[in-house]
């Protein structure tokens, strides 16, 4: 009898062991809506139509990047399904599309949705329904607020970070400067000005004049004249492209030659410098964090080689001069990195946890030395930039990568 019984017991034991292992394996794999053994669904909202449709290049580059990942076997064996909708840059439409993505398409998260007021419209909803709103494509500093909005995270350096870098630069290079600030009277300009003052700290009285302008003004000439009259010898131009070009022209016209800093928003050679004039634009300063796809100095760069290959293979219609393509590539790479770090634990909780523990990650198209770092109390992935000076017909990077972090 015992001889017969033994195998039965063994069989039971083996069976029990199997079940145990099985549950152990199941416990390792954890999924929320939008993730499975074979697929991860990612939502995205872009202004494919409407006033901001120029930014749609970002969404297309991101889609192409996920196609590349899928063609290479996916992330941990799972294919990415990238569902991207059009909101025409209208906040109510963003809300509709976000709800569609979360409630009807069952996405794991929403990644890289574009715009400040559009993302502002869905932030509360995303946080209430506890769905990650990752790597928002907007420069406002409000996306770094992990206490109040633990499900929302920015990506690019905020306007405030950029302004702090200018403050650092000025304090080092020109400690007795008199700063005149021309700023656009909206969230963009005010965010910037606040960052500048924070960066200057107790040196804030270095600012001799803060001059706001409205986008509805046809020309900003009189503001520039006023700034010159204030005796400022550093001119910080927190302006959008059209006004940046006007300011460069007017300053040259009235023979005002201060140290001229323009915001990164207005560094387009074709959109700002060329209309203003190459000659009078020499020596203008700004800062950047992305490699310029049209700059031949990157031809031998490994990261940019991968980027050019990617364009040739997966997004041949993209314009590599378009900064949106460079941006979308790097943002999608960050997203892929986070999903990779999640392993088999694809819950929304874990996605946020992993997104908040990026360490020294360097996407291919960021400037050398710039690293993405996040922490549970730091939801601002990119906080470094490098200064650049307009020389000849292009921007020339100089100096070290500067962190907006005031401590170093």
């Amino acid at each position, binding site marked *: 009898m015992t001889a017969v019984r033994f195998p039965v017991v063994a069989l039971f034991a083996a069976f029990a062991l199997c079940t145990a292992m099985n549950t152990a394996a199941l416990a390792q794999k954890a999924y929320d809506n939008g993730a499975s053994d074979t697929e991860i669904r990612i939502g995205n909202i872009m202004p*494919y*139509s*409407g006033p901001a449709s120029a930014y749609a290049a970002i969404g297309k580059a991101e889609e192409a990047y996920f196609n590349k990942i899928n063609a290479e076997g996916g992330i941990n064996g799972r294919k990415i399904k990238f569902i*991207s*909708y*059009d909101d*025409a*840059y*209208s*906040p*109510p439409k963003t*809300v*509709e599309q976000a*709800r*569609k993505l*979360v*409630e*009807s398409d069952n996405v794991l998260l929403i990644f890289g949705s574009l715009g*400040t*007021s*559009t993302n*502002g*419209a*869905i*932030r*509360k*909803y995303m946080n209430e329904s506890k769905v990650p709103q990752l790597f928002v494509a907007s420069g406002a500093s*409000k996306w770094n607020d992990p206490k109040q909005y633990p499900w929302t995270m920015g990506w690019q350096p905020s306007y405030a970070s950029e302004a702090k870098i200018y403050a650092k630069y000025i304090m080092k290079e020109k400690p007795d400067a008199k700063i005149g600030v021309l700023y656009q*009277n*909206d*969230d963009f300009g005010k965010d910037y000005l606040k960052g500048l003052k924070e960066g200057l700290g107790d040196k804030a009285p270095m600012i001799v004049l803060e001059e706001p302008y409205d986008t*509805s003004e046809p020309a900003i000439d009189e503001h520039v004249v006023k700034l010159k009259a204030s005796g400022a010898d550093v001119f910080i131009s927190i302006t959008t492209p059209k006004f940046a070009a006007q300011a460069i022209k007017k300053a040259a016209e009235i023979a005002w030659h201060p140290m001229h800093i323009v915001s990164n928003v207005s560094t387009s050679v074709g959109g700002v410098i060329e209309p203003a004039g190459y000659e009078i634009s020499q020596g203008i300063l700004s800062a950047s964090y992305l490699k310029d796809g049209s700059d031949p100095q990157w031809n031998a760069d490994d990261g940019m080689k991968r980027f050019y290959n990617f364009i040739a293979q997966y997004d041949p219609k993209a314009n590599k001069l378009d900064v949106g393509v460079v941006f979308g590539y790097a943002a999608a790479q960050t997203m892929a990195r986070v999903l990779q770090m999640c392993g088999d634990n694809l819950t929304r909780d874990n996605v946020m946890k992993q997104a908040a523990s990026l360490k020294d990650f360097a996407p291919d198209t960021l400037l050398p030395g710039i690293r993405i770092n996040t922490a549970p109390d730091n939801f601002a992935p990119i906080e470094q930039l490098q200064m650049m000076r307009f020389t000849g017909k292009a921007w020339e990077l100089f100096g070290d990568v500067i962190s907006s972090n005031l401590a170093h």
Partner: protein
Amino acid sequence: MSAVEDVVTEAPAVEAVPKRAMTLGSGTSIVVLLLLIAVPLFAKNFVIFQLTQLLYLGLAVLALNILTGGSGQFSLGQSAFYGIGAYITAVMMEQFNIPYFLCLPVAGVLCFGVGFLFGQPALRLSGVYLALATFALATAMPQLLKLNFLEKWTGGVQGLVVTKPDAPFGLPMSQDMWLYYFTLVVVLAIYIFSVNLLRSRSGRAFMAIRDNEIAASAMGVNVALYKTLAFGVSAGITGVAGGLSAIAVQFVAPDSFTITLAIQLFLGMVVGGVGWLPGSIIGAAFIIFVPNIAEGISKGLSGAVFGVLLFLVIYLVPHGARQVAILGQQFAGRLRKN
């Protein structure tokens, strides 16, 4: 413009029974009402949210319909009144903690005032010139909402987040479902009010002005008063619709109320049938769902696909949903005879 004016001035065969032409038959009304009540019980929250959108946008189209279909005046400035209503509601709810159901009437009354006042100078204009003047209002509104001295309340460019109300009395329904039924009640009340308004003395005065201003004034209609009144009523209803949208979307920002919205409402009115009130809901459905369909067909060319669809509608049924309804009725009548 002329196609629309045709509808307004030489309204088609149904003109003989103008009162009935404005509304649905009682049987159809009950069926539609039952559907509107029942569908959310079986739908997902997202669908309920879309239906809520349908209702308040339908209300905004209805308001324009009263103005254009009723009194024959054009407006491309409805987005401005819609935005004012939305902002009044959002600011009252968020900055002054006033319950949402009290904010809506205030939004309606204030927008009525604004519309009535705007109607005064607009009186001197007609046709395309009036459309242009209202267009200016719509273009100005997003910038006005960004003004610095209002920022304390409006939140400036950043906009204002609105808290969605819970169902009262511990009713076991989601916020979305409660808001849908709340919206449905408001919309129904205003719809009934509108139908009765157009059947009343004032409504007949509106239509008299629409059909022939000189004849109307010869009959003793106070043209100036009724024209501005129509503007006021339309703006007031649009304001309530805007307020409902602020609660449903949970957010207001200047970018939400651009000229695009005004054009969408105008489009909704034409597609639904100028002067036919039930068509407003169909028009609203067109402006909500057709862009989504167009996007599904081609993302890069969604605008073009939308254009083609719109062109088809205008070409095949120039009088919009109203024409489809009439054709349907005639078809049913023929079947009955056979």
